[in-house]
């Protein structure tokens, strides 16, 4: 164990003293923040968020109603009366931006349509929101028909169909909906956090592979192994790169949290973050790391250079990333059979399980337990196998191991 820690300490120290590692350490979060920042700036520039100017030529005296509607639904319109003639509109709009002319007259009753002239760049989304004005015009029509107040009220109350699924019954009060929202955040924030950790340590885990094959290439393995056992060397690497993964996470946090707080406007991040769910998410992330680290260290020991990797090794390196192919289907239905099966497959379960737990309101603890149990057993098994491959592979100089040889070592 002491030797394991020595090796781990060395790997951490060696990498932290290495310029390219340090640059990579800071570059990734900086790039992410920079792109996030740029995205925000550009996002703020889209015309959807701007208010549109609508000139109303009102012959039916509904302007007050229109203004009330805008107020009630908080529509992004600015209304103004105008006496312009329809014939002049075209000329006016040619040079205008975000402007529309709305003619309200008897055509509403005679033809059932009202002309709404817009400038070229007038946002599509606003054009559709304008439909809401029909209510105000309809009101005028009904008043003209001489209906009583009660009749008016009855006719003008719109009927909407509200979709309620079984799990939402009994919790549809507004307060509960807010709590629902909060619960979602309580899962998303720790989930995203655990995801960042998982990704960071997987990427750092890729470096284990580098480290093992480099050691083989530089032929230093034999010297190290004259002092420590192969098992200690392998464990030392796994622990060392685990620590490096957390260093990466720490840097992410140092850059990410101020940025999120700035971008999300006082999101109570820490309240959402430090919830019991976080522990489960972290457990999944750590198990995922251990599984992939075992695979990387074992495979790394079978070849001296990634560029000489055979098809077999190349495929194995891809294993941790297989999960990402399934993110789409799982996102569209987190309770599907596919999603459940992927949570039981050790190679995909860390990412998929984490993702599903964030998506789902109701957790099936049976499913989670089975999934974790499979994962823990796989970690144990793969560590054993990696140890066997590592022991032989790291000393096999000059050639890459064939799948047949690897199979033989595993059975030894």
């Amino acid at each position, binding site marked *: 164990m002491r*030797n394991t820690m020595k090796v781990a300490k060395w790997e951490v120290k060696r990498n932290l003293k290495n310029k390219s590692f340090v640059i990579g350490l800071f570059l990734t979060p900086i790039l992410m923040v920079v792109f996030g920042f740029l995205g925000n700036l550009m996002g703020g520039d889209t015309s959807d968020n701007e208010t549109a100017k609508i000139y109303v030529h009102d012959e039916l005296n509904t302007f007050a109603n229109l203004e009330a509607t805008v107020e009630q639904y908080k529509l992004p319109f600015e209304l103004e009366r105008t006496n312009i003639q329809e014939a002049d509109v075209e000329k006016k709009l040619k040079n205008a931006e975000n402007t529309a002319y709305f003619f309200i007259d008897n055509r509403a009753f005679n033809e059932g349509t009202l002309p709404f002239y817009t400038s070229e760049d007038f946002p599509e989304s606003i054009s559709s929101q304008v439909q809401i004005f029909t209510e105000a015009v309809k009101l005028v029509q009904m008043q003209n028909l001489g209906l009583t107040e009660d009749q008016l009220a009855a006719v003008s109350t719109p009927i909407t169909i509200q979709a309620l699924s079984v799990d939402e019954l009994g919790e549809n009060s507004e307060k509960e909906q807010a709590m629902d929202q909060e619960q979602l955040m309580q899962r998303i924030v720790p989930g995203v956090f655990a995801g960042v950790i998982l990704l960071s340590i997987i990427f750092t885990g890729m470096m284990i592979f580098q480290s093992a094959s480099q050691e083989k290439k*530089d032929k230093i393995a034999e*010297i*190290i192994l004259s002092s420590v056992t192969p098992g200690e060397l392998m464990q030392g690497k796994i622990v060392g790169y685990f620590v490096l993964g957390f260093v990466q996470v720490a840097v992410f946090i140092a850059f990410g949290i101020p940025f999120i707080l700035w971008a999300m406007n006082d999101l109570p991040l820490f309240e959402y973050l430090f919830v019991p769910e976080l522990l489960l998410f972290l457990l999944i992330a750590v198990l995922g790391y251990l599984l992939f680290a075992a695979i990387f260290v074992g495979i790394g020991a079978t070849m001296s250079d990634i560029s000489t990797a055979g098809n077999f090794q190349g495929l194995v390196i891809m294993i941790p990333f297989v999960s990402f192919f399934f993110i789409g289907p799982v996102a569209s239905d987190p309770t599907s059979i596919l999603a459940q099966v992927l949570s039981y497959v050790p190679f995909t379960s860390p990412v998929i399980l984490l993702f599903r737990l964030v998506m789902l309101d109701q957790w099936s603890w049976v499913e989670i337990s089975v999934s974790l149990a499979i994962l823990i057993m796989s970690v144990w098994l793969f560590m054993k196998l990696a140890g066997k491959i590592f022991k032989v592979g790291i000393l096999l100089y000059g050639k890459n191991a064939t799948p047949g040889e690897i199979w033989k070592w595993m059975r030894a």
Partner: protein
Amino acid sequence: MDVLLSVEGLEKSFKDKKVLHNISFDVRKGEIMAILGPNGAGKSTTIRNIMGIMYPDEGKITFHGYNEIPRNKIGYLPEERGLYKNVKVIDILLYLADLKDYPQKKAKERALTYLKKFDLEGKEHVKMEELSKGMAQKVQFISSILHEPELLILDEPFSGLDPLSQELLKEEIRNLARNGAAILLSSHQMNVVEEMCDRLFMIQQGQKVIYGTLDDVKMKYANFKCTIRGKNDLEKIEQIPDVQRIESKEDSTVLYLHKDITPAKWLKKLPDDMVINELVMDRISLHEIFIDVATNKNLLLANEQMGEGDEHA
């Protein structure tokens, strides 16, 4: 001299091929023991088994005074050279000493002393990749002796070094032996072995060929040979007594002589009419024995055994 390491009946197979057959030898404190053999003979495999990097199929490796392999008391310079590339010299020396549980402060002092000794003063903060091959090799040698090992295993320590560095290294190795370290040295350079080693173990195709002190080996295998330059009839040469084997090339002939001849007496038996432009009388060198073994001719040894047979007859 006390025996530090005993290897008894070592057997090892890779796949279906047996690479070590019943290898047995001792290494004693204060001696330099050579392990010789052509490439692929099984030297490195033997060493790896001693180091516990591989495990033998059969046989026993005993470190006297220890229950298991005393990794911290062994220094090892493998044949395959290499150290981490992008780290500083001093960092790697201290790391390797730390793995041997050697105190860091002492390790640093010794590291600086040795760097100075090997003409690497001021290089301690230079990265390994910036050193020349020879320099890196010297650093690697330092790393193998920094922790004051009781047993030092050197696999081809001189390859790639200039003569000056070779001398420095030889001197240091002799020093360590004088101070009581047991040294197991593998080398192809027979002159070095003849010069430095007390005993030797020669291995070919995983089998012991020769084992003994340098003097014994020389006495036993290094018979006299006589090289004559001058054109002579082969028939005439074949009549010269006490000759085991004749090698004739153009106008030069090498006569390999029986073990128990007296050179002065034998010289008198040469025919009077023999053409001799030049005559050299010397012993068969270790180098020749090695070549003989390595090329699988086994002429010297076969003849030797034959010679022994003759004696008994």
